């Protein structure tokens, strides 16, 4: 068959139009969503080596799940991998019945042996949230034994410092609680497919989790990039290198600076926040002068204008006028505490005393806290206290904190919801440790009463007594109530908070 010029033009024109049409269609379908979400995060996820040391955020709420969770709004421990439980021996023994048919991301069933293996990792290391022992009763029943009969035992099982249930195949030798972590395998919505230490981790949806929940994954890959410096993380978001910034929600030192949230929002980024039971405070070195004097501690509390401190962050945080924790924390609103801003009263107290130079130490890795410390320094100066501000490297800060070589320091109490109870234990209960913030016979006794009490109603009353005792002794000077924050590009959708953690199982990125 001879091809005429007219045919040639006709066929090539048709072919070109078809190609163009297909490419348009291709673009339209392909560009509706991107299949990868890149998260900027301060810490390496620590997915090799000691399994007890995996990072406290993404591996624990994306890859692993726990037996129970804690719901702050109702002050209840609620089921997760455990279906139900019985408290025995007055609270020293808790027997959990596990849900059936839960699969690890490698397809193996999650059972009592996996639970025992996981918690034995903590037991052999004498970890602070470890039970005394774990017993397998049958494939789906497991018992935890504790030394003390207190409600804190529940808190330990879901605390971020502990572990979620992992497959015994996660370590080598397989099933050895002393083994080395080689491949973290959990039951959560994502599984780890690649890990490069201190650089990045690639996660993919765990199809068994999605089948179980009836949800559809909207992204194919979740990449967690390690960017330790806070300013560099913000620049990575601005430049498009990452889609989302999340806090190291454990608290402490690595989060998106609150003083940059407004600027990010103004530039079109979305900021999601959730209130958490976490408060930045001034810690007194109450073992030595001048803050072994309750009057001096009160003077500091009178001198601090918490509204001004919250202003540094353009309203992203709340001033801590109402006690140690925000009002949504069990018993806090009922405690009816109100710190007073009264610089004149503070001056009266300070005037009669010769206190000399007072050292305020702050960790310089957080720009937020450096600003707060400068403002606190000035507010205290206004009432006649001569404050020397020392902005220190993280290591030097810890060294000074541990040796007690300071008068005041900026620190935090509380944390995410799941850490709420353990932080009360870690900050206010004996034994004496550098990270304790205040202990006295009265306050400590009341804090112990809180963490012992199983009955929710009675516990609420004990919380109130504890808060009031701490307030009356001016044990700490609360500054502001923190939030957990996510900063994301405008095209990221579907991140939601569960408890205090951002979850990504329904997240997608518009192209």
């Amino acid at each position: 068959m001879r091809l005429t010029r007219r045919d040639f033009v006709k066929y090539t024109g048709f072919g070109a139009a078809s190609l163009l049409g297909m490419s348009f269609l291709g673009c339209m379908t392909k560009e509706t969503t991107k299949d990868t979400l890149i998260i900027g995060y301060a810490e390496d996820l620590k997915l090799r080596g000691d399994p007890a040391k995996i990072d406290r955020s993404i591996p624990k709420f994306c890859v692993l799940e726990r037996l129970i969770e804690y719901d702050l709004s109702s002050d209840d421990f609620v089921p997760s991998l455990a279906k139900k439980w019985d408290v025995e021996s007055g609270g020293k023994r808790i027997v959990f019945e596990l849900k059936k048919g839960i699969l690890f991301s490698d397809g193996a069933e999650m059972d009592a042996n996996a639970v025992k293996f996981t918690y034995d990792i903590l037991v052999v290391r004498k970890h602070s949230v470890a039970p005394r022992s774990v017993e397998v009763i049958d494939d789906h029943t497991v018992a935890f034994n504790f030394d003390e009969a207190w409600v804190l035992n529940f808190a330990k099982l879901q605390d971020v410092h502990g572990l979620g249930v992992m497959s015994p195949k996660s370590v080598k030798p397989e099933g050895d609680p002393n083994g080395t972590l080689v491949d973290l395998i959990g039951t959560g919505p994502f599984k780890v497919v690649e890990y490069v230490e201190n650089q990045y981790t690639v996660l993919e949806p765990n199809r068994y989790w999605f089948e179980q929940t009836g949800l559809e994954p909207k992204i194919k890959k979740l990449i967690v990039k390690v960017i330790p410096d806070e300013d560099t993380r913000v620049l990575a978001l601005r430049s498009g290198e990452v889609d989302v910034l999340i806090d190291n929600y454990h608290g402490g030192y690595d989060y998106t600076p609150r003083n940059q949230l407004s600027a990010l929002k103004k530039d079109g980024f979305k900021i999601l926040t959730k209130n958490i039971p976490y408060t930045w405070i001034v810690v007194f070195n109450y073992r030595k002068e001048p803050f072994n004097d309750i009057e001096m501690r009160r003077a500091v509390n009178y001198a601090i204008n918490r509204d001004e401190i919250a202003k540094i962050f353009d309203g992203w945080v709340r001033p801590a006028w109402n006690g140690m924790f925000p009002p949504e924390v069990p018993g806090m609103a009922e405690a009816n505490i109100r710190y007073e801003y009264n610089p004149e009263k503070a001056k009266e107290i300070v005037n009669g005393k010769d206190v000399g130079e007072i050292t305020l130490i702050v960790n310089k890795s957080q720009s937020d806290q450096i600003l707060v410390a400068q403002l606190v320094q000035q507010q205290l100066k206004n009432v006649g206290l001569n404050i020397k501000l020392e902005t220190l490297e993280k290591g030097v800060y810890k060294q000074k904190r541990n040796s007690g070589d300071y008068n005041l320091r900026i620190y935090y109490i509380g944390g995410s919801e799941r850490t709420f109870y353990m932080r009360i234990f870690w900050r206010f209960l004996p034994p004496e440790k550098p990270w304790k913030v205040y202990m006295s016979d009265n306050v400590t006794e009341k804090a112990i009463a809180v963490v012992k009490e199983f009955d929710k109603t009675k516990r609420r009353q004990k919380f109130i007594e504890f808060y009031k005792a701490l307030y009356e002794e001016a044990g700490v000077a609360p500054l502001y109530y923190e939030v957990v924050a996510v900063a994301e590009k405008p095209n990221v959708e579907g991140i939601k908070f569960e408890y205090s953690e951002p979850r990504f199982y329904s997240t997608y990125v518009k192209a």
Partner: protein
Amino acid sequence: MFKVIEIFRGIEIPKNNLCRIGLSVVLFIILLGSFAPLIAKDPYETNMAKRLESPSSEHFFGADQLGRDLFSRVIYGARTSLIVAITISAFSMGIGCLIGAVSGYFGGIIDDVIGRIIDVFLSIPEIVVNIALVGVFCTIYGSSTWNVILAVVFTNWVSYARITRGIVLSLKEREFIFCSKAIGAKSSWILFKHIIPNALGPIIVLATLNVGNIILTIASLGFLGLGIQPPTPEWGQLLNSGKNYIATAPWITFFPGLFIALSVFGFNLLGEGLRDILERRRIYE
């Protein structure tokens, strides 16, 4: 003003206008720093009601994120930067001149060893060493102005040593040195009484030029959060604190940046001018 300086110092101010501008700028900054308590407010006083306020008749340079008067912080920052820069320059000059003079005067193996040490220092970028050293000092001893001084002096003496060595190599062949030796003068006497004083001209030029560089180094360290720590006002640290507000409150970065640029510009022009004077003298001699 220049006439007074000419009479007072007994030196000729070159007709070069750029040098005059340099001297004016340097004097202006020195005067601002010296009289800071008279012309500026308390640089530490916060006022959250004035947070991020733009420049006005009350706050010439605006206010920072804690409502502090930025003009006062920049002026007090001049004090900090100049005092630290001059201290570093003085220490570096002292150490560098001594090492360079010993190296050049005694020669032989001493010169070889010192020469190689100088080569090693010159082969490494100064700022990298400064950052590493300040980081180490901060980690061990905590933040202090002395960390910055020590770290910068550690690398800065080298240029003085190199220049001094070169001058001494030519000076030691001069007749007055032979005469001193002939009458039995000790080496230390010759070094301190004859050689170093005669080498001072070019060294002072170098020091003047160097102050500008040191101000930049201090500001760089401050910008990286390694230098002088808040609340002490220092230009680099002020720049750093303003970078998060560059879109909303650009004055926090603009004015410290302007003063850094001005001071470096002033010291460099002045140094160039002094070099011209020396050059003329040398040709005349």
